[in-house]
């Protein structure tokens, strides 16, 4: 069996260059790596013999073309070629193509300039902030308009958002809130037990769950579930040119897509917080009984007298802001998707990270505001 890979034999005595083997994508791999380093003849009149080539495709023809270029660069004259007819057509096609296009250099990458990058990053973020603000403003106008014309609330779509973002999140939210309640009571219980101050667990866990953990946990779970799904949905619509289709029909994507999602989330969010509060408290109640021996009736009585309802209202008051942050960030990131598949993934990640980031910032601001107000 003959060697299948492409090969060049140079016979300097007879001024003969013999090409052998299979000049196709797989056969030329060795030759393509070393053809520049072959000791090519110089100043001769050569005969190229390609009749022993078994197979040739366009890659092989291109290699041949390159070899011929090198031969000419070494100031050889190629007197005659000998190739099979089928291969001649291929060579002609490639050479014609090579002649019609001058070689193209890839565009130069701009050099790394820290000042330029800083400026670019700043402008980009300012623009992002501006666009986000425009979306918020536009949405506000549409919501105000919708109060005059209730049809614009699009109840089917709003209900759909409530179902998907709220109802379907109930099991996971219940489980996680319960576990957080258990962990919280356990950690605080360890400390309280050493002081013999068991009963204070009710006040501590009640306040922590109602005021902070309930709303924050709900927000983080909903941000992970919903903000990403909004981004992916709107982003895919953008890639499919569905957003453009809406625009050309004279329908605002903000009104059609963002409004029902935001309104639905704002409606369902307080309910989710209530659900998380209930399961969080249930978790600490179970743990208190098991670890510190506080009976359920005592727990309830203490809840009523020590914690009261004000912490619950404080926790609940954050709901619309968190909901708006999640919905707006999710939708906004969806609109910034550019026309490529990996951009959808990138913006989805960004939307979750940004939503959670903003929620924690907002929560910190609320803490400061409430402490000023003396709540």
């Amino acid at each position, binding site marked *: 069996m003959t060697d299948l890979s492409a090969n060049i034999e140079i016979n300097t005595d007879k001024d003969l260059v013999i090409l052998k083997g299979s000049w196709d*994508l797989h056969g030329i791999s060795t030759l393509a790596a070393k053809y520049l380093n072959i000791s090519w003849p110089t100043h001769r009149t050569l005969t190229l013999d390609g009749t022993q080539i078994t197979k040739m495709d366009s890659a092989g023809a291109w290699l041949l073309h390159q070899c011929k270029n090198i031969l000419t660069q070494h100031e050889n004259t190629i007197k005659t070629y000998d190739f099979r007819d*089928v291969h001649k057509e291929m060579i002609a096609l490639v050479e014609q193509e090579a002649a019609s*296009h001058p070689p193209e250099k*890839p565009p130069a990458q701009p050099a790394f300039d820290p000042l330029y990058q800083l400026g670019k990053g700043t402008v980009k973020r300012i623009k992002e902030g501006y666009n986000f603000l425009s979306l918020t403003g536009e949405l506000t106008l549409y919501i105000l308009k919708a109060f005059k014309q209730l049809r614009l609330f699009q109840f089917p779509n709003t209900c759909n958002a409530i179902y998907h973002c709220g109802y379907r999140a109930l099991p996971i939210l219940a489980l996680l809130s319960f576990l957080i309640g258990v962990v919280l009571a356990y950690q605080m219980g360890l400390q309280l037990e050493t002081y013999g101050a068991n009963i204070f667990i009710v006040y501590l866990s009640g306040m922590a769950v109602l005021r902070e953990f309930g709303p924050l946990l709900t927000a983080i779970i909903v941000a992970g579930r919903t903000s990403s799904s909004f981004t992916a949905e709107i982003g895919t619509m953008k890639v499919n040119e569905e957003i453009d289709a809406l625009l050309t029909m004279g329908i605002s994507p903000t009104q059609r897509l963002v409004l029902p999602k935001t309104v639905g989330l704002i409606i369902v969010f307080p309910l989710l917080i209530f659900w998380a509060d209930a399961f969080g408290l249930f978790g600490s109640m179970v743990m208190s009984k098991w670890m510190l021996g506080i009976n359920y009736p005592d727990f309830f009585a203490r809840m009523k007298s020590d914690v009261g309802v004000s912490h619950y209202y404080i926790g609940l008051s954050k709901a619309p802001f968190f909901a708006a942050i999640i919905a707006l960030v999710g939708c906004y990131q969806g609109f910034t998707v550019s*026309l490529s598949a*990996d951009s959808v993934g990138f913006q989805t990640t960004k939307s979750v990270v940004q939503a959670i980031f903003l929620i924690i910032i907002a929560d910190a601001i609320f803490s400061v505001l409430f402490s000023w107000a003396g709540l």
Partner: protein
Amino acid sequence: MKEKIPETIIEIRDLKNKLGDQWVHSGINLDIHRKEIIAVVGGSGSGKTTLLRNILALLKPTEGSIKIFGIDLLKANTRELASIRNRWGVLFQKSALFSSMTVLDNVLFPLREFTRLPEKFLQEIGLLKIGLVGLPLSSSYKYPSELSGGMQKRAAAARAIALDPELLFLDEPTSGLDPASARELDRLILDLRNSLGLTVILITHDPESLFGITDKVAFLGEGKLLAFSPIKELVKNPHPQIQKYFEGRI
């Protein structure tokens, strides 16, 4: 040692397809020979795309057999399927370029996967293919979303011929192209057939392509192959569906 390639590249026998509860194909027989340019035509919903998906091993037919390069697709093992897939190129209707890669990277993608050539040489081959399909080389470093629809089609064609396939499938190659570009693409298909020895199967509604470059046309309708003949004979076929299809086009 030269691999023997059977003259019949594609052999379809008694192909039947049931999608949902509807029979799309009820017994199709088709033989496609080497170096032929075959067009598959038929009205909307006649199962052209389903047939293509069957042949491309993307969709398993309900019944029947498909042999490509003499290998039965339905009985082929993973290795045989992979070897078949290396020997064909596909141009999808919506181009299906990888949107996160530049045009050149798209073309180089199969080359990088399946060959072991030095990077510089690969780039040259990639640029050669891009030039062959008539794209300006300056578009090589652009992303698909920065190109017009027609240019995306050409880029997709460059990717389809990257590995110098023996068999080329084109799903509506000229749709969305201006007439001049469409004729250039037709010429390219002819050139490729003549110089690379390609077998080409195209789904098209473009009468100029049908009359200009096809050797034979397969007409699908009523779940069957209603006719399989050169276009000049096909237009004379008295079958009412065929007459309706060509109405006003001849």
